[in-house]
């Protein structure tokens, strides 16, 4: 699993959560994480129905673990204006990490990276630094470095 500039969507203009998850699903086709944007979108929505993946301070982590996903991956979207999302602090969302894993055989290394990303979002320093970066290649590099499997 690599995180490159095309895993990062900056200054995204979306009208709501639904719109965003559709755009992320399209981007996932470009990143070869899925062949069906529609099926991936449905997986995100279904997980969201279990309970919201909104966190706090503007972050959310929608995820899909389904047959629609062909390879594990992450897409980060930074929104131009906040959207409504059910979150712990009742604040709208501006920063979204979409996590995707195949239903079976994701591989421990990839799962560990996703786990590292999730726990990094508990860390104020990570969030602050992430938001301070403005270029997609720098952001991709920073995320890769922070969640690399060598760093436990």
């Amino acid at each position, binding site marked *: 699993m690599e995180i490159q500039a095309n895993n990062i969507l900056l200054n995204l203009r979306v009208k709501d959560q639904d719109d965003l998850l559709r755009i992320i699903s399209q981007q996932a086709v470009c990143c070869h994480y899925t062949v069906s944007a529609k099926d991936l979108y449905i997986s995100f929505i279904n*997980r969201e129905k*279990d*309970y919201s*993946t909104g*966190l*706090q301070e503007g972050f959310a*982590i929608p*995820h899909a*673990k389904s047959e629609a996903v062909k390879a594990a991956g992450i897409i980060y979207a930074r929104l131009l204006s906040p959207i409504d999302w059910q979150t*712990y*602090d009742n604040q709208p969302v501006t920063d979204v990490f979409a*996590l995707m*894993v195949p239903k079976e055989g*994701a591989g*421990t290394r990839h*799962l*560990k990276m*996703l*786990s590292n*990303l*999730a*726990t990094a*979002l*508990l860390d104020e320093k990570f969030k602050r630094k992430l938001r301070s970066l403005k270029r997609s290649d720098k952001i991709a590099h920073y995320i890769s470095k922070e969640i690399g499997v060598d760093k436990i």
Partner: protein
Amino acid sequence: MNIVGISACPAGLAHTPMAAKALEQAGKELGYHVKMEQQGSMGPVNAITQEEADQADFVLIASDQKITNMERFKGKKVLNVNINVCIKAPKAVLKKCVSVVKGD
């Protein structure tokens, strides 16, 4: 206080490790020993041994999912807490659990 627990969520990807880490960090700050086993997509991570289970003051289950291997905790007080509350307010969760166990 010696606390052991298990976190688990529907996909086992993100909330499971987040809750575990949040509770362990909160434990450090409050001066409690907290060890959380993650029952997520990687299988058991940071598994709790029978010895650790025996020594625990109580067991915290951060999940609404089916938890495996609960027989380790036979005879122990088990408290169930919503996994999202554990991520959102881990210190408050630990304090509340401790006060329940102490019977305050």
